[in-house]
């Protein structure tokens, strides 16, 4: 019995010690030699999904997001400049030792993934949101979302993608812009969101979450 037990422990120790350097499945966030794609698959996928299409709306969809925006946000988290609660609770620590190269690799990985969108489920609410998205609320000084984020909300070299984002995430971020100083680098959104009422935020978020965009974005029709 003792021999059997000893064999089991030795086998376990050998397995443990023997397989420590396979970089393609490392979850080590402090090792600059691990590729961003590996981290995306081994770590980030736990919340954001392996293709960046998260299931729980606590975590934003990253698939198809503009690479420059993903890089900027990861650097904001790493530098503790983005202080919205979920960002602080989940992302400051995870990003603390990422190198610029890993951030670039992560951003490229997610930018290349095909984004999902929610299925429409409350047409009345979504239609109300579509009006705000397309025309803004002129009487209240709220500009149209599409003026900056694009007709499909797919973003550009200056503005992030919002199409297909979880409605709950959009609502929370609009509240962060409107009532906190948690995202100082999105000062433009503070002005934009200033006069939005809760019901309007809910409507525009509901619509934005259902926008499907053509993929890949630059494909010829």
């Amino acid at each position: 019995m003792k021999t059997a037990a000893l064999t089991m422990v030795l086998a376990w120790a050998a397995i443990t010690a023997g397989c420590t350097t396979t970089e393609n499945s490392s979850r080590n966030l402090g090792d600059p030699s691990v590729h961003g794609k590996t981290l995306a698959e081994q770590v980030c996928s736990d919340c954001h999904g392996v293709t960046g299409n998260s299931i729980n709306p606590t975590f934003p969809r990253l698939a198809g997001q503009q690479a420059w925006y993903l890089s900027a946000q990861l650097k904001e988290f790493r530098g503790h400049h983005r202080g919205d609660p979920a960002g602080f609770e989940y992302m400051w620590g995870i990003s603390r030792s990422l190198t610029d190269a890993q951030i670039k690799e992560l951003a490229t990985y997610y930018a290349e993934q095909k984004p999902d969108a929610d299925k429409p489920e409350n047409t009345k609410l979504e239609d109300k949101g579509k009006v705000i998205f397309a025309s803004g609320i002129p009487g209240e000084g709220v500009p149209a979302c599409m003026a900056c984020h694009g007709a499909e909300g797919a973003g550009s070299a200056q503005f992030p993608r919002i199409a297909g984002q979880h409605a709950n995430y959009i609502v929370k971020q609009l509240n962060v812009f409107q009532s906190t100083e948690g995202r100082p680098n999105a000062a433009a959104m503070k002005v934009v969101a200033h006069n939005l009422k809760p019901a309007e935020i809910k409507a525009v978020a509901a619509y934005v979450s259902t926008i499907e965009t053509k993929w890949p974005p630059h494909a010829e029709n």
Partner: protein
Amino acid sequence: MEHLILVKNSGLNRLIHIALVLILSLIAVKAHAVPAFARQTGQNCVACHAGGQFPDLTPYGRLFKLTGYTIGERALPLSGMAVLTSNSVKVKDATATGHAEDGKPIFNTASLFIAGKITDKSGGFVQVTYNNYTGDTGYSGHTGSDNLDLRYADRLIDANRDLIYGFTLHNNPGVQDVWNSMPAWGYGVVPGSTGAGAATTPLLDGGLAQQVAGIGAYAYWNKTVYAELTGYRTGDGIFSFMTQGNGGQVNIKGTNPYARLALTHEWGPHNVMVGLTHLDVHQYTDTTSHSGPTDHYRDNGIDFQYQYLLDPYTVTATVTRIHENIDYGTLGTPSATVDSLRAKGSFIYQAKYGATLSYFNLTNTLGAESRGWTPEVFWTPVQYVRLGMQYTKFNVDSAGTNPKASDNNTLFFYVWGAY
């Protein structure tokens, strides 16, 4: 031998005392820091624990454990935990076993954790607990091995497949599980809480805790199917570090199998699990012996968990049903059955304010039964301190101190802290 253990333990006790003083002073000085796993990932407790509350895990917390506690970067692998409690039984009897200090605030228990990643594919936690108060004879000052789980794990993942597989070495059937419908993590987890009273519970509900060594292999496929096979043997010889200081050693015969199958699904902010567990154990009738007749325990469990996670609300609900058959090795002793039905629902707001309601119904042919409810409210002002109050209401309590069940109703207050 016994003398030797006592001497060793008193040395260990002093060590634990010193460690505790150090930890408490650290809490006072550096109150923004968090326990070992959180230091490793740099995240808040709320990332891995539903609503930031022990012991309920989020889907991410479950994956953190299944991937061998390896996410993040190595950090100081030490954490401490201390629990102060006070209870009050409706009809008091200070002479009854386990009730000598009723009604008085007591420093109940403290634990030291060594926890964290070891290599990129292995990690674990080892808990050593100092029980200041065991209940039977008042203060005891007793230190022993508590839960332990060491793992090796790997993950094959791309856009088309996701397979996590690994091996675990642990000392309590169920402690390796990642859902909170498993008794090891599900019910009466606050040290000193009344739980289901003194009724008989199945072996799967703590009967072999810190008495055995289990080596298991598991796989989790596409975040959908979890399967595990573990073998348990007596925690002696080279495994005795896993069972030290826990009183008389339970001896089981050979390797005793445990099998687990669970199906999981996640949609929007919801996730569910339904699982089956089987444990088959031959335990020597003469617990001091390694030979002779054995009592044969067969436990079959079915459990369910539902979770809703979307700030500011967290809901976790579990139901666990275990049926146990016991065939005794002593000639002439009739077979017995032990049944356990437990359920718990918890609601947490803003990761700070929480309420839980637990139900227990323990029935068996051995005559030690209980049935009742435990509502609890708690407050977590900062993520490493929790204050809670429970009231356990017995409808049946045939093993309790007072013959009338409701006379054993107990109010329980606790302060939990971890660093």
